[in-house]
Every structure is written in C-alpha cells, then in structure tokens.
C-alpha cells in the first residue's frame, strides 16, 4: 500500500481572485489512482476552481498541486498542452467545436498531437462506438441532443486514454435519462482504472454512486467520506443576518 502514490495531491492550496478572495482556503487532499470522487457543494463553494487547478487553467495563490507527485504550477507554459493530454475534461456546456462533426471534434484532440491519419480513422470510430454514437459520427453538434453532445465530449476526453477524467457538472444541462447514461459511462470508464473527479449538484447521482464524496463549502473541505452521501451544508444565512 505504501508504494502507491496519489495521482493528485493538494498541499495547503489557497486560491484568491482579485474580486473574490479565498475561493479555496488552505485545502489539502489526496486522490489515489482509480478512485471515483464526487465533489459536492453549493455554487461558489470552489468546486470548479479546484478542478481548474488540476488542469492548470488556474495556478494556486499559495500551496502546490501535484500530479503524480510533480508540481503542476512549475510546468512551463509551453508544455501545458502536453500535460493536459493526461487529463480528459468534460464540462456542463460540452465545449464542442460547433463547426465540426462529432468525428472531427474527437479527431481534433489526436490531430493536435500529430497522430497519423490512419490511426485517427481507426481510433475515433472505436471510441465513438464505446459512447454509443457510432452511427452519428458525421453529425454536427447542433444536430445532436444534449446527452449525445456530452457523449461526444466524453469520447474526446477519452481519446488520449487519460489517467484522470475531470467532469465539471457534466449532467447540469441534461434530462434524467441522459444523466443516467453519462454517469453509467463514467462508472464504466472508472472500472477500467481511470481516476474520475465528478463535480455535481445532483444529490440523486451522488447517493446512487456510493463512492468517495468530498464536500466543499466556502472554500473549505467540510467532509470527506469514502462511501459518502450528498452532504447538505448547514445554511449560514441565519448567521449572516
């Protein structure tokens, strides 16, 4: 057990924005390879910021984030794109390129890496098949439903066979059925060993998954349970009055 290193480790991380001080305050947490972690908490608790610190979209004001025990903040800007290929990201708003078909959206992630066209033509349909879109490869995003668009995004996140998948409110814009499909897919991906970080508001999802739950509130980790349930933080409104 001792020789397994955390894949992601936050060490006393504080993140401050000019107009929004202490979005995260002195956060320390470790995530082990292969874990499925749900990140819960009200809007503005710091979930998205925490995820952005992992993908190096933001850098900590204080403290350090480690990926495989290497400090993320020390990565040269030029090398960021290469670092990010270790991490697949899925967003609430899908972030698909509107001018490209499902196939092209997924292929883009390989093209930027200089992968040969033959390999792209072999890998992309395969991964789209896994997310169940093999027959809709050549549709543009606007021709797909929300759930289908999110599955394209997931396929794109998976194409580099990343060690970690970061999903920031991936089901926020989806109907219950599509939500179940996406979560089911994430669990399946996790079962092959990929670490998953899922930020969500959806109590039902978290309770059903029954895995590790980290609850954030006001920039602090308020609970961290290995087989957690969705935690509703005590309302603070009364105190503020």
């Amino acid at each position, binding site marked *: 057990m001792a020789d397994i290193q955390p894949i992601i480790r936050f060490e006393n991380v504080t993140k401050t924005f000019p107009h929004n001080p202490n979005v995260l305050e002195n956060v320390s947490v470790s995530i082990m390879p292969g874990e499925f972690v749900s990140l819960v908490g009200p809007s503005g608790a710091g979930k998205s910021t925490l995820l952005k610190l992992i*993908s190096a979209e933001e850098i900590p004001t204080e403290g350090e984030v480690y990926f495989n025990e290497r400090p993320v903040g020390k990565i040269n800007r*030029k090398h960021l794109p290469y670092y*990010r290929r270790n991490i697949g990201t899925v967003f609430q708003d899908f972030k698909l390129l*509107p*001018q490209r078909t499902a196939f092209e959206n997924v292929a883009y992630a390989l093209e930027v890496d200089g992968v040969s066209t033959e390999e792209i033509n072999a890998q992309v349909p395969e991964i789209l098949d896994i997310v169940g879109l093999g027959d809709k490869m050549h549709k543009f995003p606007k021709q797909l439903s929300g759930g289908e668009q999110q599955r394209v995004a997931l396929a794109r996140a998976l194409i580099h066979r990343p060690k970690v998948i970061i999903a920031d409110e991936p089901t926020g814009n989806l109907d219950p059925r599509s939500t179940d499909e996406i979560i089911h897919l994430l669990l399946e991906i996790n079962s092959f060993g990929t670490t998953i970080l899922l930020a969500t508001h959806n109590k039902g999802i978290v309770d059903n998954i029954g895995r590790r739950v980290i609850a954030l509130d006001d920039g602090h980790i308020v609970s961290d349970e290995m087989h957690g349930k969705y935690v509703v933080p005590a309302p603070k409104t009364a105190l503020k009055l």
Partner: protein
Amino acid sequence: MSNKTLKLWRTFKEGWQNFRRNGWLSFATVSILTLSLFIVSLSVLLGVTTSLILDTMREKVSVNVSFNPDVTEERILEIQKELSKYGKEIASVQYVSRERALEDFLAKNNPVIAQAIEEIGENPLLASLNIKAVNPEDYPLIVEQLQKSTFQNDISRINYEENKRIFERLERINEATRKSGIAIGFSFIFIAILITFNTIRITIYSHRQEFEIMRLVGASNLYVRTPFIFEGILYGLSAAIVTIFLLFGIAYYISPLTQGAIPQGNFMNLYLQNFGFILLGLILLGMGLGVVSSAIAIRRYLKV
C-alpha cells in the same frame, strides 16, 4: 510525413476549412481586401502611366535654333559638330535643312497653306538645329550659352520661349502628380491594413470560444494560431486574383485614352507586358496584408 509536416498540413486544412465554412465572412473579408488592393494597385498603375506620359512629352521638348538665310550649310554643320562636344548636357543635335523643314511643314499643314507657299515660289523656311538636352532643367543654360556664343550673329531666332512655358507647366504637373500619387498610395495602403486587420479581428472574435476549447483539448498555441495565418494567406491570394481581373477590366476601358501617349503604345500593353510582375506584386501585397493583419489580430485577441 513527419510529425511537423503532418501538423503543418493539418493547420493548413484547418485554415482552408475556416475559409470555406465561414462563407459570408470570407466573402466580406476578400471583398474589402480586394477593394484595398484594387485602389492601391490602380493608383500605382495610374501614377506610372502619368509619369510615362510626362516622360514621353518631355522627350518631345527641344530648343530650335534657326539660322539666318545667308548662313551656309557647312557653317551650320560646323556649329552642330561644335555643340555635339557637350555630351554631358546635350543629348542630340539634329540638322534640319530648309528643304527638309519645308517638307515637314507641308506634311503637317493643310493643302490650302501648302498651295499658298507654292504660290510664293520660294522656300520661306529657315535651316535650323534641333537641340535636345540630356536634362530638361538645362535648357535655360543651353539657350544662354547659345546667345553668348561665337556664332550668335548667325542665329536668326531661338525658339525656346514658347517651349519653355509648356515645359514649366509639365514640370509642375509632374511634380504634383508624383507627390499626390505617393500621398494617396500610402493613405490607401494604411486604410487597407486597418480594414483588413479589423475584418480578420472580427473573424477571430467569432471564433474566440473555440480557442479555449482547442487549448483544453491539448492544442498548442502555435497549432491554434497557424490556421489563421493560412486563412490570411487565402484571403490575400483570393483578393489578388479578383483584383487582377478588375484591373484587366479597367485597362480595357482606359486603354484607348492612352493610345500613343506612352512608349508601350497604350495602357493595355503596359498592363499585359508587366502582367507577371503585377500579379506577383498583388499576391505578395495581398498575402502580406492578410498575414500581417492576422498576426496582429491573433496577438491581440488570442491570449492563450
């Protein structure tokens, strides 16, 4: 294909796809770029034509020295020889005999006058030397020297004063067209850069959400940027090709006006003789405008 050339080829394809899929925006950009190229190249071409016309007219300016009727042909030829020594100032000295002068005169004027001269029965014209200066500015000096020369008494008349007025006017026109041509040309190039830059900026602005996505998917900055450079090249190339056709149309219409006024015969000949050069210039200028505008716009709006 190596990794780098594969990526370069892909960024080119990206650029081409942007160009094709954003049909209207591309159309607008190419139109504006075409307009700029057209105005700039037209002002350059018209400037060149004007200065060619002026050069041709200047060629025709000369000093005509007429000799008294009693001066012999030998004497005049001697003077011609003397004048030819001043090779630095004088380009040519041409002897026009009385007979030759009459022939020319009859050829130029209408039959009534010709008949009148025949009736006189005697050649009223004088032998002359036609002097052309190397430098048109030297005419006053040459005239002055002639008036002080050893053969000043042989001279009947120096026909320069009327030439002088025409000449001075030509000089002024030439100066004015050159100055305003440069000014207009530069202001249009400036406007062209401004407009093209702005249009490409709008193109990039319309893509801005995509840049973030591309970066998140692992595209390097260079990979995100290069397609826009190619797009700029494509704008420039298309605009250059449209412009070369527009210029052909203009050449077709103004060519008759320039018939015989320039050494090339007319404007169309001038255009066709320099077609390769003009096309190359337009392509380079167009691509330059497109690329420079893209590069500036990317730098300002693509902080990745």
